[in-house]
């Protein structure tokens, strides 16, 4: 009876308490924040659950047209046969993600029908019943479980220094907080409305697998990700070169250069078969129906925003940047961490120079970069700069007055936490005075754009000025971070230190 009770206790108790070895009693008096044991991960579900509650309370906040986009896709995939998915255009928000995402929406729609059948009718444009809002919001919150799992895996792969530290000072705790409570992800996914948590979860899981040496799984995850959202094509070269160089060539020469004789065709075939099979699963049905050109035209709408004058210098700059970055991991691979650095540079470079870039794409650089930020002092400095300006640049996404306090409060919360935790971790200031002044200038920009300018006479004649000021000011910070990151990548290429794979 007593044994059963103890078992029941450990099941029901919130959260699962680790029973100290050697003591039979479950009534241990220990404050959770005091001396944590290295394997006591009870804080992780607490962090994850805490942010989930925050997401739930934002259910009734403003949502953008992306909400209607996804509702429309639920309707299309549920109500129409597969052959019509990429031809349907009743709504202006046509399906323009790869087929795997369409299948994802299809599976969501089966749950959606229990909330409100009307949302699945294609003709019900801009349908926002309370049940619809509840379902869509909950679907984002629930699919974030992929992100939460990925963060856990990344935290396990983080290097840390020995020596007892209080829980809040451990790199893995800081990384978990920076990722789970990332400001950009919160406002883009849970207010503006998108499924980035789910997608970035797959990306981070893939990165974690590479850090753990499980390259085939990492490749599989990335291929799946590519077939969910094709914007990740920007970082595909980093994956390709890394896998080719560090996975297909099993050994290096003593000086780190490639040993051609160690090429493993088996591994190359394994990678190739993964890519082809996932691609087949995703695009197969559409190739069979002869709809491949239609699907590709939806995915790559070059008619949208084509501007000849900017085409050539864009591609050239992009090509140049990518070429240089890839040569780094080809010539002197630094293992999985070098790959991660290259990935971040590619992501940020594509943000700087890419085609039809949304401001949300900054998250593709910020999130993976968090892993490097908790391991190196220099990276932490660049991270703070990039994150603060990148997150601030997302402010125009939430332009409603009611959401203004939320975005300001959450921004302050995240910025305060990132600065104080990284400063404590690396013991000392991470930014020079010029950088600090620039970041403080963001406050002035915010006051100017949200308070001063709307009250001025030019609000009606030149309404785009706040957006212009925000974009230009933030671009300075983002460009600066990009240059520093690029330089750090090249500097590692220049020095002759070897890191383990």
């Amino acid at each position, binding site marked *: 009876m007593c044994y059963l009770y103890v078992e029941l206790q450990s099941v029901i108790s919130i959260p699962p308490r680790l029973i100290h070895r050697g003591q039979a009693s479950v*009534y241990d008096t220990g404050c959770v924040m005091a001396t944590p044991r290295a394997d006591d991960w009870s804080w992780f579900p*607490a962090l994850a659950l805490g942010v989930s509650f*925050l997401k739930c309370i934002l259910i009734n906040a403003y949502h953008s047209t992306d909400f209607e986009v996804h509702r429309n896709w639920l309707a299309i995939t549920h109500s129409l046969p597969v052959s019509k998915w990429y031809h349907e255009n009743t709504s202006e928000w046509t399906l323009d993600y790869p087929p795997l995402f369409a299948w994802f929406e299809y599976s969501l729609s089966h749950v959606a029908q229990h909330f409100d059948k009307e949302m699945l009718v294609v003709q019900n444009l801009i349908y926002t019943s309370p049940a619809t809002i509840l379902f869509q919001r909950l679907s984002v919150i629930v699919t974030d479980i992929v992100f939460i799992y990925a963060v856990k895996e990344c935290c396990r792969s983080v290097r840390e220094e020995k020596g007892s530290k209080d829980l809040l000072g451990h790199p893995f705790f800081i990384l978990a907080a920076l990722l789970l409570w990332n400001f950009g992800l919160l406002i883009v996914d849970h207010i503006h409305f998108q499924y980035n948590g789910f997608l970035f979860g797959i990306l981070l899981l893939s990165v974690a697998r590479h850090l753990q040496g499980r390259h085939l799984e990492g490749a599989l995850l990335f291929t799946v990700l590519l077939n969910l959202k094709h914007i990740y094509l920007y970082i595909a070269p980093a994956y390709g070169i890394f896998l080719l160089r560090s996975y297909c060539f099993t050994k290096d020469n003593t000086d780190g250069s490639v040993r051609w004789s160690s090429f493993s065709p088996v591994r190359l075939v394994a990678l190739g078969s993964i890519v082809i099979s996932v691609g087949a699963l995703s695009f197969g049905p559409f190739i069979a129906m002869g709809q491949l050109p239609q699907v590709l035209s939806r995915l790559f709408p070059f008619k949208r925003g084509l501007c000849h004058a900017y085409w050539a210098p864009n591609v050239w700059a992009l090509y140049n940047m990518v070429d240089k970055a890839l040569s780094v991991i080809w010539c002197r691979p630094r293992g999985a961490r070098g790959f991660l650095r290259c990935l971040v540079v590619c992501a940020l470079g594509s943000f700087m120079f890419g085609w039809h870039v949304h401001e949300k794409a900054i998250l593709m650089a910020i999130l993976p970069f968090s892993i490097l930020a908790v391991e190196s002092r220099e990276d932490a400095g660049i991270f703070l700069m990039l994150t603060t300006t990148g997150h601030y640049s997302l402010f125009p996404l939430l332009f409603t*007055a009611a959401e203004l306090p939320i975005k300001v409060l959450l921004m302050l919360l995240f910025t305060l936490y990132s600065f104080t935790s990284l400063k404590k971790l690396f013991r000392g200031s991470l930014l020079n005075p010029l950088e600090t002044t620039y970041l403080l200038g963001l406050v002035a920009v915010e006051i100017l754009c949200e308070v001063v300018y709307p009250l001025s006479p030019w609000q009606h004649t030149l309404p785009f000025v706040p957006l212009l000021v925000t974009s230009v000011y933030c671009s300075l910070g983002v460009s600066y971070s990009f240059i520093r990151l690029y330089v750090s990548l090249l500097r590692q290429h220049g020095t002759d230190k070897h890191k383990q794979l």
Partner: protein
Amino acid sequence: MENWSLVSICVLFGLTARWAVSLNSYSGAGKPPMFGDYEAQRHWQEVTYNLPVHEWYFNTTDNNLNYWGLDYPPLTAYHSLLCAHVAKLINPDWVELHASRGHESYGHKLFMRATVLVADLLIYIPAVVLYSFYLSEGSNKKKVCTVLCILLYPGLILIDYGHFQYNSISLGLALWGVVVLGLGWDVLGSLAFVLSLNYKQMELYHSLPFFCYLLGKCFKQGLAGRGLFLLVKIAVTVLVTFALCWLPFLSDPGQILQVVHRLFPVGRGLFEDKVANTWCSLNVLIKIKTILSTDTQLYFSLTTTLLAILPSSIKLLMKPTLWQFKLALVNSSLAFFLFSFQVHEKSILLPALPVCLLLNDLPLPAIWFLQASTFSMLPLFLKDGLLVPYVVTSLAFLFFSIYLLSAFEHCSEDKLRLGPYRRLLICMPRMDLGRVTKWKFYFSITAMAGLSFMSVALAPPDQLPDLFPLLVSVFSYLHFLGLLLYFNIVQIAEPLQSVRKNQKKSN
């Protein structure tokens, strides 16, 4: 990480939760002709801005007291006047006499919600931070956790930022009174409390403990010398503060009488609607509202209230320590809630505040009470369309407070001070009362969840349309009664002279 950054993060998180709740609906939204508390507050801004002071509490052609007449003391009126001046700067339509009646707009809602946030930020939140850091025990991390848990109490968030009220001002001022008294500045403490009383007359629920604590301190210092001096200082402070708050009304005794008449509407009966107190619950079995006359009801409730608060007050008078003071605040306000006249369900916030102060010391009973208090207001939240915030804030509060304050670890008989229960139940077989309490807690929370679900998902039978609100209020009543007994026992069982090894809670 340093304390200031951790506390700032907690405060920012608390503010975010508050504003997120405020994005939802408010009391009486879109429900003409009377609307709700939101319209009442807006109307008071209109009245105080446009009419002269001597007309605020009177029924005139410009001021129809039947349409949300002012029924709070003068400080509320002055606060409304201040808000009205700001409103006039932004959009004069919001406080236009007569024309602005029933005004509802996106901008106006933002403005009103902002006034609540500003008041909270200036008054309630600093008091909570100061209390946790100066008057509660434990490591710095524990103090930060206390700040977070108090700030996440769902009842106050949902009523102030959902339903729409300004409880954070009156409760905040009362909390300032407690903090300042705890730090030893008696005169300032009594000043803060008098201000709180002049904001909402319901603070009378807290007045007896303040009185007994200060009187007890005077006795302890000896009525012959310093004690008498202290007593005189406090009395003068109280009188002067009252005079200053009521200054515009002092010229005419008729004014004072009318205001008092508005503050204490004895004509309205023993209770209205469903409320989790004795009379409403008793009414289920015996229809006392119809059996007894209004006067008898008044005397009956007065007597029972006095009897209920007597033990706690006397104990506090004999031993005026901070610990006793906190417990007496709980006991007094809870007794008033359960037995007093014309109690509204929102008055549960008055005992809830001092219970928040006990989160650090008796986590499990405090969490239990706070959750029950939120649950008791469920019918109100459903009426206001606040179901989602109710569910999310309740779950978040339960989770954070149980986890951060290690509630289940501090669950032994000794920690819960269940000694007297052990003595009372001497005839019962030997059982672990701490474990029993934990299981009762689990059962209670499950039952609350179940009742909440049923209130939303099921339709009541036709013969009993008020079934679910009634079940909610009776269930909550039983909790409050049990917890009143528990907190009284904890307060009274404490020995008058603190024993050295049990030194934990003496001042």
